[in-house]
Each structure stands twice: as structure tokens, then as C-alpha cells.
């Protein structure tokens, strides 16, 4: 293409170059949009996963639970605690002659503690008296 032709089609050339500029700018915008669409979802998922892990571990991997579970022994009179065996990260406890209030107390303490309840049995041993057994781990 010689200078002559360039001169001849100068206007078309300017319009063509500016049109190319628009097209490239539009492609840039599209690529930015797809980049964000793809990465935003990924980043948000990563953030959500990490936050979930942090919360789950905080709840179900509480290192202080070994101390905290001791309260289950003192929540009722010691005469009503038939057995209380804590081994490593596992607790087996048995209560007898609990009144309805005492049963509520122990149950509430248990369910408000972030332990995994492996088994739980509550029986009415006599009128308004209950026995309770549970095993939990953490």
C-alpha cells in the first residue's frame, strides 16, 4: 500500500482504526467480564469454604472441651451421678433418681455443649424420677 492510496482512503482508514479500537475495547470489556465472572465465583467459594471450616472447627474441635465437660458431673448432686468416666476425648456418664428439673438441667447442659452425642437413654425409673445415661465424644 503506497502513500498515495493511504492518502486517498485517509478518512476510511481513520474510521477503520477507530472502529478497530472500539472492537478491541469491547473485547477487553468482555474478557474482563468473563474473567470476573469466573474468578469471582471461585474466590467467593474459597472464602465461603474457609469461613465454614473456621466456624466448624471452632465449634466441633474445641480444645477446651475436656475441661468444660466436667460441669456435667457437678450440675447435680454427686449422689445422683452413678458413674462419670472420661477417657481421652470420650465421656460416659450415668445419673439416677433425677427429678424432672434435674433431668432438664443435665440435658440442657449436654445439648449446649459442642460434643457428639453417641448415645443417650432416659428412663422413668419411678414416678417423676428418671435415670439417664449418655456417651459423647469431641
Amino acid at each position, binding site marked *: 500500500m503506497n*502513500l*498515495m*492510496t493511504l*492518502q*486517498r*482512503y*485517509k*478518512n*476510511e482508514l*481513520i*474510521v477503520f*482504526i*477507530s*472502529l478497530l*479500537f*472500539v472492537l*478491541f*475495547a*469491547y473485547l*477487553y*470489556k468482555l*474478557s*474482563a*467480564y468473563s*474473567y*470476573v465472572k469466573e*474468578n*469471582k465465583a471461585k*474466590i*467467593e467459594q*474459597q*472464602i465461603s*469454604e*474457609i*469461613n*465454614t*471450616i*473456621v466456624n*466448624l*472447627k471452632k*465449634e*466441633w*474441635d474445641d480444645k477446651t472441651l475436656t475441661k468444660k465437660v466436667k460441669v456435667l458431673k457437678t450440675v447435680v448432686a454427686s449422689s445422683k451421678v452413678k458413674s462419670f468416666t472420661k477417657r481421652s476425648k470420650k465421656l460416659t456418664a450415668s445419673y439416677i433418681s433425677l427429678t424432672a428439673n434435674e433431668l*432438664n438441667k443435665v*440435658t440442657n447442659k449436654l*445439648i449446649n455443649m*459442642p460434643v*457428639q*452425642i453417641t*448415645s*443417650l*437413654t*432416659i*428412663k*422413668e425409673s419411678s414416678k417423676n424420677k*428418671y435415670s439417664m445415661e449418655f456417651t459423647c465424644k469431641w
Partner: protein
Amino acid sequence: MEKRDNRLFIHRDMEPVVLNHSVEIILTPQFYTFIRESLDVKFTYQAKQIAASLFDDYLDTSKEYQYHVYKCENEWCFFAYNIDEIDQFLESRGIEKHRVSKIYFAQQLSSELEEPIELNEKNILQTIDGTVTIIPSRFMESNLSYKALNLSELKLTSGITMGGSLNSFISLKETILLSSIFLILGSIFIVEGNRIKSSISNEDEKLTALLDENPTYTSSMIRKSILEKYRPIDKKERSKRQSIKDISKLLSAKSQLSWLMIKKETIQADIETSNKTISKQVNRNAKAKNFKVINNKLNIKVEKKI
């Protein structure tokens, strides 16, 4: 025809030419109408805006004219020309329009043409009262000698381009309009693209901060494995606790718990009710909480999979 290297005088009686290079053409008054006016305007574009009205009484209204203006001493020199007519004439003389790099007007050589020059045998070109004019040779004295003018040595400014008005499919006005629109649009797209890209910078920073605090969670495999361990625990334990709470809501002075057991994936309870009305009420409430209910007179057994 006068040919001086890459510059040509264009007049009606010129001979056809063969060109293989670009030329600058100088139009003789046969191809333009010239007016010199003293106007109170400062800029060329202002003068150009009123050019058409100045030529109202001089031009054929059936044709479309282009205008060229420049400042000559203390006045404005206006030219009206019909580019189509010039183009047709040039083609008839073998000059392709893309060969024309610049167009000048003979009027621009008014000082050089104070002495006449010979265009061809029939015509001469001379400045008369400040205006360049074509004069038939027969009106001149027979023994008059003509000046030799070397066009290529002349300094000419304020020329116009053929491309600006005829060669292009798109006019200069349209070019400016279109390219301005495209440039604005393009700039908007780029700004928008940058804005879109920066919209995830907050999330990116948040993630970086989280990973700095918990570097072990960088790997998606580790995250997946931890989630697979804790999510079922969380789900089951919440379900167990919710079921215990639901069963406790079924209890009252007239409906008492006689047995409750959580084992493996099931929670079961026996509730003793004092009469049929309470029994029905407990039954209805238990079902509302999605318990499987077995009625045995006043004894109600509820069960749910965890």
C-alpha cells in the same frame, strides 16, 4: 497545458496526460469562483461558515459546491468549487483522482502572475487588479514575451486534499463524527472493563487475608477433606439437639416422658398422656415436627431418623 514536475495547471484546453506519480494541481479560474472580502471574523472556521452565503448570487444553485477560505493580508479569500466537475475533468484528461495529492488555486500565485504566463497557445494567465484571470492570447500584444514560471519552486500553502472531499467514501465531517463516537465508545468500554476487573479486588484481598491467617487451607483438597469430616457431624448433632428440643415441647403436666433413646441414626421417645384429648394433641404436634407416631391408647411413641 503547463507541466512542472509534480505540479500541474488545470485548465479547460489542457492536453491529456499520462501519470505514474502523484501530482499537485493548481486550478485556474475556470474551475473556481473567487471572492475577496473584508470580514470581522477571527478564525477560518467562522469565515467558512458564512462562505456559502457570500456566493449566493454567483453560483448555479443546481450544483453542489465546496468552499475553501484562507486569510490573504487583511482580508479573507473565499473559493467556491465543484469537486465533481473538477474530478470529471481530471478523469477526461487522464488524471486519476488518487494521483492528486493537493489542490491549489491559481489565485494563490497572484504575486507571481503579475507578469503573464502562457497556459497554451490560446490562453494566458495573469493577475489583473489582484485577481488571477485567464485572458485569451489574441488580446495580448503579439510581440509580448511570457514569463517562465517554475511551479515546483513555488512555495504554496493552504492547499486542499482531494481525499478530503471526493476520493473518500466517507466525508471529513462523517469521519470526525464516526471516529469521535467510536473513540468515546471505546474509552467507555475500557473504563468499564477496568471497573469490572477491579470489582473483585475486595474479594481477592479478603481471600488473601483469610489464607494468611489459615495457610493450611490453601489447598482445595485439604479444605474438601476437612469439610467432609465436619459437615456431617454438624448436621447430625444439630438434628439430634433439635429433635430433643422438639420432644421436650411435646411434654407437659399431662404428657410426660417415660423413655427416650438416641442410638445410631434414630431418636425415639415414649410419652404417657393423661387423656385422649392430650393424646391427640401430642400426636398432632409430633407429626407437625415430622416425627413418626405410633399410638397405643394413651401411650405415644415418637420416632425420627436423624
